[in-house]
Each structure stands twice: as structure tokens, then as C-alpha cells.
């Protein structure tokens, strides 16, 4: 299941990147975050790992994720290495008017064949709402 949301932030790409690339900012702007912990030490970079759980439905869903792309002011992507199969990405692009367009993508796939497919689809609405809320929070954090 792939869910995508986007927003335009009134700031340049470097300013947006400062927030998106700072793991300490995630509890502030990531909506429905139930658990956020550093697994590896050091600054965020490719290979860094974090435990992340979002409250989806009745319980926290997530697992350990690893940063798979760390391209400053451009792309930040991660993959799930435990828990639910997961890929995520923040795409940061010039909007052409001094503002920045941020695209937030999440692709996930539960185990469990047919019930997994149904669960993914049922969860998609809440995941989408959380992503919209996350982008609103990000915009607010960066613009203030």
C-alpha cells in the first residue's frame, strides 16, 4: 500500500532540511508518534537506525527503520528492518517561488495474505490522515 501527501512550505530547502534531517525534531512534528528511539549512536546519516511506532488503530505499529538515502536538502528515505515492511521518503524540491515543496511517501505491506491486504487498506485512511497532520506540523515548525 502506498500513501502520499505533499505540502508547500514558505522557506528554502536548506531550512526545511534542517528540521527533516534532525531526529530530535521528529517527536515534535511526526503525528501519532508513540515511540521514537535512537538505535544507533551519532548524527543522522545513511545507515542510522531508529525505532519508530505510530498509533494506528488499536496498537502501535512500526519497528526499526534504517536511513537508506541521506541526500542533503533533497531526499531522506528509510526502510523498515523489523516489524511491518515499510519504506518512507521525504522529497524536498524547489517550488520556484522561494518556497519548498515537500512530498511525504509511505509504502507498507503487512504479512498475512488476504487479511494483510485488507488491514493495509483499512489502515490507509488513518495513515493518510497522520501524514497530512505531519506535514502541517512540519510546515508550522519550519515557518515559525
Amino acid at each position, binding site marked *: 500500500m502506498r500513501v502520499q501527501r505533499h505540502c508547500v512550505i514558505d522557506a528554502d530547502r536548506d531550512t526545511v532540511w534542517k528540521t527533516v534531517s534532525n531526529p530530535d525534531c521528529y517527536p515534535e512534528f511526526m503525528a501519532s508518534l508513540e*515511540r521514537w528511539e535512537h538505535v544507533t549512536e551519532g548524527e543522522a546519516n545513511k545507515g542510522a537506525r531508529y525505532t519508530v*511506532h505510530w498509533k*494506528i*488503530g*488499536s*496498537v*502501535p*505499529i*512500526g*519497528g*526499526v527503520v534504517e536511513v537508506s538515502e541521506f541526500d542533503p536538502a533533497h531526499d531522506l528515505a528509510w526502510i523498515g528492518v*523489523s*516489524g511491518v515492511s515499510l519504506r518512507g521518503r521525504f522529497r524536498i524540491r524547489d517550488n520556484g517561488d522561494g518556497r519548498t515543496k515537500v512530498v511525504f511517501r509511505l509504502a507498507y505491506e*503487512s*504479512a*498475512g*495474505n488476504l*487479511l*494483510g491486504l*485488507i*488491514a*493495509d487498506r*483499512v*489502515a490507509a485512511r488513518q495513515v493518510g490522515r497522520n501524514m497530512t497532520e505531519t506535514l502541517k506540523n512540519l510546515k508550522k515548525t519550519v515557518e515559525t
Partner: protein
Amino acid sequence: MAGISDVLDWTKHQVASRVPKADLDQRDPDYIREQLPGLWLLASLYFRADVRGLDRIPRDGPVLLVGNHSGGNLPPDTFVFTLAFCSYFGVERPFYQLAHNLVVSMPGLGSLRKFGTVAANHDNAMLALESGAALLVYPGGDYEVFRPSWERHEVDFGGRKGYVKLAREAGVPIVPVASVGGQEAALFLDRGQWLAKLLMVDKLARLKSVPILLAPPWGLVVSDMVPRLPLPTKIAIEVQEPIGVDGDDDVVHKQVMESLQAGVDRLAAERRFPVIG
């Protein structure tokens, strides 16, 4: 000629021999992973479950999770908590649950062993804790799980406190797990302890209760052995701060009971209507 006591002994032996020996290796993380989406759908859509405080469970090492038990032979709180634990810590973290002999030996419920369910006795519990696993126990067992629905917000282990001795021997903390909602999955009328004695199943199958309840689709049900449709009651679970086993058994037991009752009272105060929540 065989007397009544011989027949009883033979029956008791037959029942006991059908209880599978605990084999912790039967727990299958891949099987659990594949069942989680189905459990998530049931917990999120049907029981509208809400689980809080999982961060209070120690992140690794053995721990004894002690809960109040509700819902009869189809306890929604057990599978909701199992789903929450496996989602939060990952299916890789060893996690076992103690269940009544009858549950683990019942035909068709063999898959529970893949979830880590083992027969409730001291040896199996020690085996699980010594292996470094988290262990979920419901000391109230069949006594508490069949209490009348109007006592649904009362934590009552029926005086059982062997879990404190277990935690002390294993050197692990106790984490109380309070839940509400399960006892509204049917209308439980009576524990039926008198019926258990009358039928002698208390001696034959360690069954202290033969409950009487009203539940769809059957209406009046005796014994809760026939599959029924649980009402879509809202389940709320609160994991509480760990309790160290330092003092006397009675003191620790009192501390656990007070903590659980306070949690149940908090969760119950948030409910506006039965079943709906």
C-alpha cells in the same frame, strides 16, 4: 469390579495426559507475524481497543506480566494484549502466555501454542522466565474470568498469589496489566462453582467454574464450551509501572492488587455505556 473412585482416577489421568508438555520451541514468530493483521482488524474495528503504557514494560529480559482476566473462554483482552506486545516489541521478543489446561488441550486450539501459550503451572512458568522471556499470567484464571458481569470492574484473584512466589524465584519484576471491557462480551450470570462441584469437574479437570451466561447466538449458555459470538465491547488496557518483589508475599500481592484496581477504576471511569464504551 471398578469403584467410582477408580473411574474418577482413570478420567483424571485421561484429562491430564491430554495436556501437552510445554515446549517453548513451539512458539513460531513467523506464524505470529502472519496472524497480526487479522488480530489488528479484529482489535481495531470490532473491539475498538486502546492499549496504553507499553513503554513501561522493561525493554528486554524476563518479566512477569500480571493481568486481571475477563471475557470467559473467549477473552478479548488476552489477544488484544498479545497483539500490542508483539507489535511494540516485535515478534522476535520471546513472549509466552499461561492458559488453563483445558484451553491448551482443546481440539482446534493447537495453534495457540504457536503464539506461545503453555499450560498454566509453576514449572512451565519458570521454564519461560528462565529462558529470558516475558510471561503473561492471569492469576484469577477461571475464577475471575467467569465473574458476574455486574462485578466486571472488580479485580478478584480469588486469593491466588502464587505469581509473587514465581516472580521472586525467577528474580523478575511484576508488571500489572489492567483491562476493562472483556466482561461485557457476554452477560455472565453466575460462576457456577456449585455446578463444577456437582459435576466433579473441579477434581477431574481442575475446572473450578461451570459458568452460566447469556450470549448470542445461543441465549442461555452453560459452561461456555460452545463457540459463541462475543459482543463488540470496547477493550481498554493500561500497562502499569513495574513492581519489584522485595517484601513479603502478602505485601507485594496487596501492592499489585491495588495497582490493578486503581487502573481498572481509571479505565472504567472513562466508559459512558456498557459494551459501547
